[in-house]
């Protein structure tokens, strides 16, 4: 079991549990792309909105006004982070709902004008499964390919546009390989052709700069738990003037666009977490990028190991490699025994054994695609964590290669 963390400095050491007290095992969290710990100060800010100033924001009395004011503050914080206006921010239950809302909302609102949607092959399932469902409802979907770095070519986007096209949806940064897409270029193309442009920025917001105006983005999804906010809350930015159907109908919350009593404490937490993430971004991005480079080099020193995703245009915190001759789940479980939390592909698919659609789309050969490891760093990652991780991965890879029938003799420890 996990034990209460010993904060050194709560704003730096987030969910830092250096050791499991029972086993004296070192604990290293290397899966920040899956989720992050809520900052202690964020959780502390949330609690009063649950137990004390708990009013329903839709009500008329003073208690409700406290909730409304707090939500307004969070809306402002989210807007500032995106370069948007507060009126363009709509709160949701997370990145997945935002993606579903943006895509289905536009599809249903614009189906009289056209039924064609353009997306990429490397989208998160929140986008791709939504598109698949829309296909069953009579829409058509073009899946753009990516190059070997996981990058969409803007020229492909332009070529795919037809008079029927109502929406382009391409993610800002990929959750598995970390590749950052040419969003401003795609936005410009969308603008030129008068097609709406949605981007799933769940992995980007709070980690790299975002500017919806400069990047010509009409709709943008984000999720709080990816930047040290609480789980179960997110937002959709909708450029003012863009009309779409609601996904969740009911009361008049969120200016009649997203019904349901607002998750006030979650929204407050998200706002605070995002403003802290944006404030710390320049410094953190530099420090984490340096750690990431050290980690990447350390891992690529293992023979028959290959980097996935773009060498430069990637999220500061993302390392994704494949090791030939071994399999991902085994790597994860052995790392887990060494106190390291990591991922193979996205968290959602890690419990199924199908190879990652992202790695496959990047052209990673089938015989090595199963041996992928994603390590994603965070604010609280230290130099010592990186060193420990490199050593542990080396040891685990060797153990598994010794166990594998595929390993050539020269890579075995006892040939």
């Amino acid at each position, binding site marked *: 079991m996990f034990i209460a963390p010993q904060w050194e400095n709560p704003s730096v050491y987030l969910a830092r549990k250096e050791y499991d007290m029972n086993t004296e095992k070192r604990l290293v969290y290397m899966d920040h792309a899956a989720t992050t710990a809520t900052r202690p100060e964020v959780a502390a800010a949330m609690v009063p909105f649950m137990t004390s100033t708990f009013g329903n924001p839709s009500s008329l009395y003073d208690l409700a006004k406290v909730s409304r004011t707090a939500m307004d503050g969070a809306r402002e914080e989210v807007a500032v982070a995106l370069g948007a206006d507060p009126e363009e921010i709509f709160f949701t239950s997370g990145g997945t709902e935002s993606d579903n809302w943006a895509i289905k909302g536009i599809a249903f609102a614009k189906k009289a004008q056209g039924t064609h949607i353009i997306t990429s092959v490397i989208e998160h399932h929140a986008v791709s499964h939504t598109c698949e469902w829309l296909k069953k409802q009579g829409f058509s979907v073009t899946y753009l390919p990516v190059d070997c770095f996981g990058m969409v070519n803007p020229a492909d986007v332009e070529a795919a546009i037809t008079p029927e096209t109502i929406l382009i949806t391409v993610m800002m940064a990929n959750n598995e390989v970390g590749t950052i897409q040419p969003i401003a270029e795609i936005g410009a193309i969308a603008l030129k052709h008068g097609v709406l442009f949605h981007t799933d920025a769940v992995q980007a917001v709070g980690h790299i700069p975002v500017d919806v105006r400069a990047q010509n983005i009409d709709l943008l999804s984000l999720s709080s738990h990816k930047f040290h906010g609480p789980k179960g809350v997110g937002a959709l930015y909708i450029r003012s003037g863009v009309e779409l159907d609601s996904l969740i109908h009911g009361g008049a919350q969120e200016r009649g666009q997203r019904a349901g009593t607002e998750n006030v404490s979650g929204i407050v937490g998200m706002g605070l977490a995002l403003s802290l993430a944006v404030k710390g971004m320049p410094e953190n991005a530099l420090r984490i990028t340096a750690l990431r480079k050290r980690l990447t080099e350390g891992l690529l020193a293992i023979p028959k190991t290959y980097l996935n995703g773009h060498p430069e245009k990637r999220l500061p915190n993302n390392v994704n490699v494949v090791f030939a*001759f*071994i*399999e991902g*789940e*085994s790597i994860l*479980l*052995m790392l887990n*025994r060494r106190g390291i939390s990591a991922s193979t592909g996205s968290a959602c698919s890690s*419990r*199924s*054994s199908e*190879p990652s659609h992202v790695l496959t789309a990047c052209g990673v050969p*089938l*015989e*090595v695609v*199963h041996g992928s490891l994603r390590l994603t760093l965070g604010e609280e990652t230290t130099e010592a964590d990186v060193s420990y991780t490199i050593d542990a991965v080396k040891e685990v890879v060797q153990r598994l290669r*010794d*166990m*594998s*029938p*595929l390993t050539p003799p020269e890579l075995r420890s006892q040939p």
Partner: protein
Amino acid sequence: MYNEKVMDYFEHPRNQGAIEDADGIGEVGNPECGDTTKIYLQVEHDVITDVKFQTFGCAAAVASSSMATELIKGKTLKEAWDLSNSAVADALDGLPPKKLHCSLIAEGAIHAAINDYRTKRGLEAWKEKKESHAEH
């Protein structure tokens, strides 16, 4: 996800490795599917005197291959042939439902190794009762 016994056999696999000059070798699965197991047999008077395995795959594949080698060591070839994947899973105190198929690979590799031994000695290969599990 996995119980402690599975994790123990995954972390400390029994009979892992290769046998030089094995009497029978069987390999099933393929790396594109994410699972491959190779079984090495040493046979004396129809009895398996030594067995080793190598596995590329998930923890369930590793643990069930390892458990299977333990279960067939000292058994006759016929007994080893009849070892079912569910017996292996039972010996591991169970596998998660969606990982049950991973134990098939050990059964398949054992069958392949036994038939390799038999055909090398000019004997007829035994037939699978059900469909081959080689490409699970």
